[in-house]
């Protein structure tokens, strides 16, 4: 079973890979809209990647109002 820290790190690694930003340039508290310059649609795309990686189903509403990686990771963690 992953810890929340591990899940958060995997989310950050995946996001940096998916959106082509240098590994290590993202932090858990970062606002992903701002840091990655993405819109809500691209966030949904990122969600699909995360689902495949973690092998879970993450309903769209789980990201409603979420804008930082740490909270996103905790939503994933609760479904692992």
């Amino acid at each position: 079973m992953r810890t929340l820290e591990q899940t958060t790190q995997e989310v950050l690694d995946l996001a940096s890979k998916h959106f082509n930003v240098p590994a290590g340039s993202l932090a858990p508290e970062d606002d992903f809209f701002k840091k990655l310059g993405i819109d809500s649609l691209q966030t949904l795309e990122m969600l699909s990647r995360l689902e495949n990686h973690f092998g879970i189903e993450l309903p769209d509403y789980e990201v409603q109002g979420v804008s930082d990686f740490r909270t996103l990771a905790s939503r994933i963690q609760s479904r692992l």
Partner: protein
Amino acid sequence: MLDLSKYQSIGASLKDALGKFSGEVCLIESDREREKERLAYRDFKERAHPLAKALQDAGFVAGDRASIIMTNQSKWLISAYAVFYAGGVLVPLDYKLTPDEQWQLLKHSGTKVLITEYPIWRQLSAAEGRSAATNARTVLVTEAPHSADLGGAQRWEEFQGSGEPAFVPRIRKDVACIVYSSGTGGRPKGCMMTHENYLEQCVALTSIYPFAPGVRYLSILPTNHAIDFMVGFFGPFICGAAVVHLRTLRPEYVREAFSKYKITYVSLVPLVLKNLQKGLQTRFDELPSGKRKVFNAMVAVNKALTKSRPRLGLSRRLLKQVHEPFGGELRTIIVGGAFTEPQTLQFFYNLGIPVANGYGLTEAGTAITVNDLKPFRADTVGKPLPGMEVRIVSPSADGIGEVSVRSKTIMSGYLNEPELTAETIVDGWLMTGDLGRFDPEGHLQLFGRKKNMIVTEEGKNIYPEDIEAVFESLPVKEFCIFAANYIWPQRSMVGEQLLLALHLEPGQTYTEELRRDISARNSKLLNYKRIHGVVLFDEDFPRTASLKIKRNALAEQLAKLDRATAFLPL
């Protein structure tokens, strides 16, 4: 042309349609690969009537208000119909607002019954704002897990009365819906839309974009939005068409839905349309050189043959590889909520996919003008719909002035805001606050806004005063938020941004620490509500006797600054 003249209300017209199209499919709900639900009109009625009866048993009477905060799904429409059947006033709220914003609107609207989904209720019930909205006495929650603590709410699925509900008639001038066009700040703008507004708009829109049994509309825009309410509920239901809901809006499932359900119409906001364009363009660019040349030649042929009007059959044959992924039945993409760039519209039209761009406001009952595609024009927002009188007020030498509208689709006013209503509807004419002019062919062209607000590409109306609370107690002398284009008019409807005007304390400088403080507060706002930059102003803000900032006067002073140097990006 559809004749709804014999009907007095949304409820009465839908009641007849449910009987008339009894065996036709009205709703399909899909969740990823799974089809969760497929309802015929008779099934829809069987689901809605027990809910209407239970509402009546709970004391819900004519004129009572019921709010829906849900994502697009069948229970949204079933609940709405039950409310209309029971003579209620529907308050459709945006599920993307924060819980406290939602409570504020629930209070403002005087909602008696709230209908929502469990994940939304989980957040709503824990929010501080709940204590303020004690008027929402009955809360119905859909899809709650068995073990869930509902915090005083009831399960939607179990809230059923026995026996037939009594149909409660309403008249055309009665309020049917209170639709918040924006404003969760100090002054929520609740548009009171009458039954007549919807009946008339439905007739006008279906005269250009007809619905009938067999037509399938893909409902992606939130149904609380005026456009989806009309073309994703009322319009198709009145005509016996079907509405397809997706429980997830991931691009891959949306793409799949087009071919799986042979979609006829879809409404999108410009942001999604542009995204679709990007995806298609990438696909075309990746074609091997030879194939790309053939493809480009076919696009050129299609363009030439559809110059005067769309020829769907021909375009589908010529550009099969483009049309097949869309299911092969797509007639029109309806785009709304914000301004769409002409090159995006042209891109799709060249491929034989007409995009119905238009112009509208919630206050005007959805659409004022639409492009009738005869011929297609990417540079305008089309001609006024039947029944719409549109005029340009105080035009300048180049013919540009404020667009105003008079029609039976104009709202009756803003809830609890008689002064604001009087400023907005003058002698029966709705002052839109948008700048435009008519060209010689009678097409409306838009040139920016007269009012201090922005509309994002996602179709969100943002008023500066609604987001100022986040910057309260900022360590500066005073601050005020503006739409940048309001201060420095650009004659453009795209790329609108908000700015924070700052007056620093004597001797204070704009430090990195202050910038970080602003940035941190900014990130608390939903992404589409954020400011993009700061403007420093070194004089006291003009204020009224009661010390309120005179926004217009301040804007005039700020306008004297050079935008290029004064606007400091955050």
